[in-house]
């Protein structure tokens, strides 16, 4: 009887080895992605920067992934990326077949916290990202005289959710430069904001989209106040950085830490992520493909068309590190941000325990 059991166990083991070896062989001959489709969830509505970068990457990814899978893009807008991020964290399997194109808003929402945040961006595995040159904060020409006049009607800043990275410039501008501002938020996306600034419903807004800014300038609607990054943009060389604008009024210590915590790192713009638990071999494959996509001359050309010159790709590992660093800002700096948001009537999330 014992012998029979042993023989049975050995046979089972043999079968296991055989299947595993056959699997390896099969995998060698048939790449994992062959005949499969990768779904890329976009955390915003169609037509914006996040959507455009997802569509650009998705077009070329299949070319560089062994097995040449098909790619489809699915928009899941809402809550400044919260809906897509929550869904991605709780519903998506780590099989490399569903990815998400996210933006810095997803990180900003997490830092802000609150009961609706059911994801942790540190757990996602970043495949790679693109960073456009910093946002350009614009003001309507007819509202410019009111900016420094506290007796005049406040200049209206418009945003989707009041937590975008560039909003930090306006809040610190109000606090340290005396800008006369008030904020409204809730616009679904950049196309509605572009219309609102043309209509005069809002007076101040910022975007990284160079074409849009140039159009608005050419139409005589706006003038540019500053750029978000720590160095001037190549395509808007005469526009000062926000730090230049602050000059000697630039705060130090906690106040500046808070600003940097909100404004985020320049690398954090649009990035492609895989869910927690995605196996390392798959991550390696996807990251290599992303890197090759970014070196494709056609992507380089098209990227200039959509993002403006000066956009840069960043490897996934680097963005992962930046996200961790960004989220790990000291509690005191986070409290400072909350205090500023409360002071200026911007949404404040509940603190995470």
């Amino acid at each position: 009887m014992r012998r029979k059991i042993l023989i049975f166990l050995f046979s089972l083991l043999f079968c296991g080895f055989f299947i595993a070896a056959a699997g390896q062989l099969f995998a060698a001959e048939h790449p994992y992605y062959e005949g499969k489709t990768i779904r890329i969830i976009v955390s915003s509505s169609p037509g914006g920067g996040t959507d455009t970068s997802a569509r650009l990457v998705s077009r070329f990814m299949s070319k560089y992934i062994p097995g040449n899978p098909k790619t489809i893009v699915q928009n899941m807008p809402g809550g400044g990326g919260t809906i897509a991020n929550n869904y991605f964290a709780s519903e998506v399997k780590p099989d490399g077949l569903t990815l998400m194109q996210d933006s810095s808003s997803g990180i900003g929402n997490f830092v802000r916290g609150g009961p609706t945040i059911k994801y942790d961006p540190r757990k996602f595995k970043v495949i790679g990202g693109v960073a456009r040159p910093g946002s350009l904060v614009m003001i309507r020409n007819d509202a410019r005289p009111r900016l420094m006049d506290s007796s005049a009607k406040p200049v209206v800043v418009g945003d989707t959710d009041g937590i975008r990275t560039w909003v930090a410039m306006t809040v610190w501008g109000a606090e340290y430069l005396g800008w006369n501002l008030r904020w409204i938020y809730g616009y679904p996306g950049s196309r509605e904001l572009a219309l609102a600034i043309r209509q005069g419903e809002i007076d101040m807004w910022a975007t990284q989209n160079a074409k849009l800014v140039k159009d608005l300038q050419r139409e005589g609607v706006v003038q540019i106040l500053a750029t978000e990054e720590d160095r001037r943009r190549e395509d808007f060389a005469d526009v000062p950085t926000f730090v230049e604008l602050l000059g000697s009024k630039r705060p130090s210590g906690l106040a500046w830490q808070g600003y940097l915590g909100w404004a985020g790192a320049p690398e954090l713009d649009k990035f492609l992520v895989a869910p927690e638990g995605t196996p390392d071999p798959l991550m390696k494959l996807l990251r290599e493909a992303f890197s090759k996509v970014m070196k494709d001359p056609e992507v380089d050309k098209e990227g200039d068309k959509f993002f403006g010159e000066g956009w840069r790709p960043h490897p996934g590992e680097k963005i992962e590190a930046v996200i961790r660093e960004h989220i790990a800002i000291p509690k005191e700096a986070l409290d400072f941000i909350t205090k500023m948001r409360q002071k200026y009537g911007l949404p404040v999330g509940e603190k995470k325990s």
Partner: protein
Amino acid sequence: MLEAALEGLAGVVQPEAMAFMALGVLIGSLVGFLPGIGGPSTLAIMLPFVMTMKDPLLVIALIVGMDAVGNTASAFTSILISVPGSSGSQATILDGYPMAKKGEAARALSASFVASLLGGFFGAFVLFASLPVLRPVVLAFSSPEFFILTLWGVSMVGILSGNAPIKGLLAGILGVLIGTVGLDTKSGIERYAFDVSYLWEGIELVLVALGLFGIPEVIDLASRKTSIAKAEEFGRGYLEGILDVFRHWWLLIRTSVIGAWIGFLPGLGSSVADWFAYAHAVQTEKNRENFGKGDIRGVIASEGANNAKEGGDYIPTLAFGIPGGTSTALILTAFVAVGINPGPDMLTSQLNLTFAVIWTLVIANILATALCMLFSRPIARMCFLPFYAIVPPIVAFIFIGAFAANFHSYDLTALMIFSLLGFFMRRYGWPRPPLLLGVVLGEKMELYLWLSYTRYGLEWLRRPMVMALMVLLIASVVYPIVAGRKEKRAAEASVAGA
């Protein structure tokens, strides 16, 4: 300008462009015919291919051609089986399906296709005529005006569909409430989602439409144990339908203006043009007692408007690069990829491409109408099939259409719930259209009210255009109620006199 117009025409009638346009029309018609598969998702699938094309004229021919005709073929299912093929043909059901039941499917279909064709022409004409004044017109509407328009839409359809204005308004309010389900897009706060991730994104419109209209009619058909058409003949309706459109030319022009107008307002969305036009027809036409029971004017109004809307949709897209809806947002992405620069350039250096869009709207509509006319007779024959042959495929059709919304098993649960709601609403005389429109406009209504209040406080109520729209809104709500009571009193008096 004439030179640019001719250049645009020459560009889209070249054989290669015509072939792409024919392909676009074919895909657009097929997508319109199949419920659940929306134009935007098809455009999204095609986008990677389109973005690799080099010639902007071919891109215009293909995707503008496809987008322009989605609402033409969608009338097939709206009229024949009470299932909207696309969101733009929801109002067509109200009179189209009763006509099919009366054995006038051919008449309803031919009228709908010709109305679509002429509505499409009208939209293209509006786009052409508005070129010099595009910008100020689009800029005149801000959040407060959009809020009043959404309010107007729900209340007008609530009052006018069916003979129970109060029930209609309540159904509209219920629709608005259903529209709030999901995560609030401003704050991410969960509303009526009960921690179910399926509900975070809100309820798909297609499920509400299929449930409210599709299943209850199938149950009715099965319980009647007849074919869809009670009359056993195809009738002379085919030519009659075409002539109907010309008989009601003034209605067609008015509803096409409404369609184009809704289209060019970036913010109202694409699925409301037919409802606004239908409500306008009910409100302004004489002898309106037949609306909802198979009046050809209901079909003409809805179908004329939904195609005219497409031309209007391109106005903000081309003038500012601000798409009117999801489809135009994707088209815009493709345009930028192939070097078309929406914005002021479209009226100067790229005027020929603007004209290429206009010509494509015209030619694609002709192609789609010819295609639909060709197939209308064989497809319309399904009205004469006995119930046991037609009910199972329609049920399968509806369930597949519903499952295509998210490919989630909850899609089917949601369909069942709305089917039950639709069945009871139908049975107890509650109008269903306001509920559907409430779902369509609820989210926008809330957004524009929020933006109006946070931006202007209560000042927005004093804006001249808001006040003008409020007067129109109140008049359009109060007038039918007063007129209805007057008619009722007159009828009672005549009975008492007799």
